[in-house]
């Protein structure tokens, strides 16, 4: 069992709080992605788990064993670094087998294990090469191979794909996920790319300013963001957000935005009349509607192939609206929009917390 339990972990660098009370329980064989903007503390949390940095307070347990005081090498973990961090003076095989050599395993065993890992990663023909003779993607694989050979309890990934070009990144994303399904080891993966988080994770942990904003499956985070931050962070294109005041107009509920637009709200918003709030609607929950309450003018159209995104200026707020691939609108067109009422989110303006519309 390789669970990872993090309890009340705090980390201060010279009086600056980088991690502020992190509590997280990661199940055996789970693939957890830590995501957030740069400086949110996600890499620090990973380094604290690895033992490369020490927690100022709190406890970390791997497989039920407290590891706070243990050296990285005694934690039974493997880590893949953003810069790959391969040993430049060793061949690919040397890099992958270094740990086994340190543990004084026999030459045959090392060769067998390195060979097996190389087979999984399609590195068979590159084993004799030095890192400088490998492409970025191949180095990435060697770094992965170095982690696999160890057969650790927990894999730690620190933005391993951010140095690769877009196409290779998508490919490696799938490969890492496939590998995880095959090896079934607990994995903790750090990224700033929410698409990577959505596509790879069993569960996503959204971090903001050293605190956990929300933990959940990709769809939970997408459908039920707990805070305004998560709503804006998860999803691409981002959720449309507009600040305003909840009002009642005739018998219907609406959000009167600061720019003067009026967004319809479901009846469940009734308890919040008079409150300052942020409304959130995803692009796919916003449609063109001749009777729509929201007026605007088309500014830009992005055609992605399977679908199009139409950007509309509504009273100073630019919103994104998902349309089909043959959408006939042109920049400058006057349009009316209406959101799907059941897919509207409302967040408290002051705290950023979700206001229940159920």
């Amino acid at each position, binding site marked *: 069992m390789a669970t990872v339990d993090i309890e009340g972990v705090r980390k201060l660098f010279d009086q600056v709080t980088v991690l502020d009370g992190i509590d997280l329980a990661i199940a055996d064989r789970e693939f957890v992605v830590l995501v957030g903007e740069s400086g949110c503390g996600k890499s620090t949390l990973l380094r604290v788990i690895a033992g*490369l940095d020490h927690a100022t307070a709190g406890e970390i347990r791997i497989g039920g064993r407290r590891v706070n005081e243990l050296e990285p*090498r005694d934690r039974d973990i493997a880590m893949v670094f*953003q810069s790959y961090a*391969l*040993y430049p003076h060793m061949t690919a095989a040397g890099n992958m087998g270094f740990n086994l050599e*340190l543990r004084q395993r026999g030459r045959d065993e090392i060769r067998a294990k390195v060979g097996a890992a190389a087979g999984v990663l399609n590195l068979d023909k590159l084993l004799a090469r030095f890192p400088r003779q490998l492409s970025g993607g191949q180095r990435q694989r060697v770094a992965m191979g170095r982690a696999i050979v160890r057969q650790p309890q927990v894999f730690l990934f620190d933005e391993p794909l951010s140095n690769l070009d877009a196409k290779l990144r998508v490919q490696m994303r799938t490969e890492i996920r496939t590998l995880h399904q095959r090896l079934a080891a607990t994995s903790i993966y750090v990224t700033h790319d929410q698409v990577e988080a959505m596509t790879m994770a069993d569960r996503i942990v959204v971090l903001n300013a050293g605190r956990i904003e929300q933990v959940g499956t990709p769809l939970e985070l997408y459908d039920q963001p707990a805070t305004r931050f998560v709503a804006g962070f998860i999803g691409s294109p981002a959720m449309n957000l507009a600040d305003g005041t909840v009002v009642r107009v005739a018998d219907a509920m609406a959000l009167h935005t600061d720019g003067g637009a009026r967004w319809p709200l479901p009846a469940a918003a009734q308890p919040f009349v008079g409150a300052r709030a942020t409304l959130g609607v995803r692009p796919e929950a916003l449609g063109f509607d001749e009777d729509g309450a929201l007026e605007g003018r088309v500014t830009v159209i992005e055609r992605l192939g399977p679908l199009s995104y139409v950007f509309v200026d509504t009273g100073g707020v630019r919103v994104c609206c998902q349309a089909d691939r043959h959408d006939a609108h042109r920049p400058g067109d006057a349009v009316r929009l209406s959101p799907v009422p059941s897919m509207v989110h409302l967040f408290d303006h002051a705290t950023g917390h979700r206001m229940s519309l159920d």
Partner: protein
Amino acid sequence: MSAGTSALPLVGRDRIIGYGLMVVAVLCVVGPFAWILMSSFKHQIAILTGAWSFTPTWSNYAEVLFGRRSDFVGNVRNSAVVASVSTVLVLVVGTLAAYSLHRFRWARWVTTGFLGWTLIFHMIPALTLVGPWYIAFRELGWYDTLGGLILTHVTMNLPMTVWLMMAFFSEIPPEIEEAARVDGCSPLEAFRYVALPLAVPGLIAAGILAFIFSWNEFSIALNLTARDTATVPVAIARFAQQYEVQHSQMAAAAVISTIPALLLMALGQRFIVRGLTLGSVK
């Protein structure tokens, strides 16, 4: 200093002036050496009369190396021992100190204090220290021993070695050593298997510079050695006696003494250039 650095091409008068300056610079360096080299193949009389045409002779070399009155081979042996041992010692001490200062989280005053001290020490003329060393070594019984001279050369070379090795260690990305620590290395093993092999060019550069310094060092050796322990530079100086200067043998000995330095520079030049310019161009 990348290979892609493009220089502005010189044209017309600039070109002539440029080449002219270059020729002057080369003559300044090569001229004296060529003069010594020529003298080493002349008889003493040809040197004293200032004759330009002469019949080359190996006799000076033969006299210096095999002559009954000469103990130059012994001097070369002394120099080789002093330079080799002091280089090895300074590399061991300097590399460990540089790694410790660079990698471990010492209090700021420790690092600054140590490096500041080495810098000041490096700027003090060696002759300032020779007097106290002479007195101390006489008391300790280290005067006229190779061990004493080795110790002084280690001391003189340590600042440069520490600074040079720190520059090389700072070029190694910290993640590589972190990867090694996750991979199963103790801090000492991370140094031994990862940091040290990657700093080999630095070791070569620092080693060559320390060796050449020690090989050429004159003022300390002159004061702390006697006949049996004299090194090559001291021996060369001794060809100039009160009543007679043996110009031709002095020249031959000087030429022989340049051989190790020339060989080392030829082999290790690229490492030295890299070491001295490290961090200057990103």
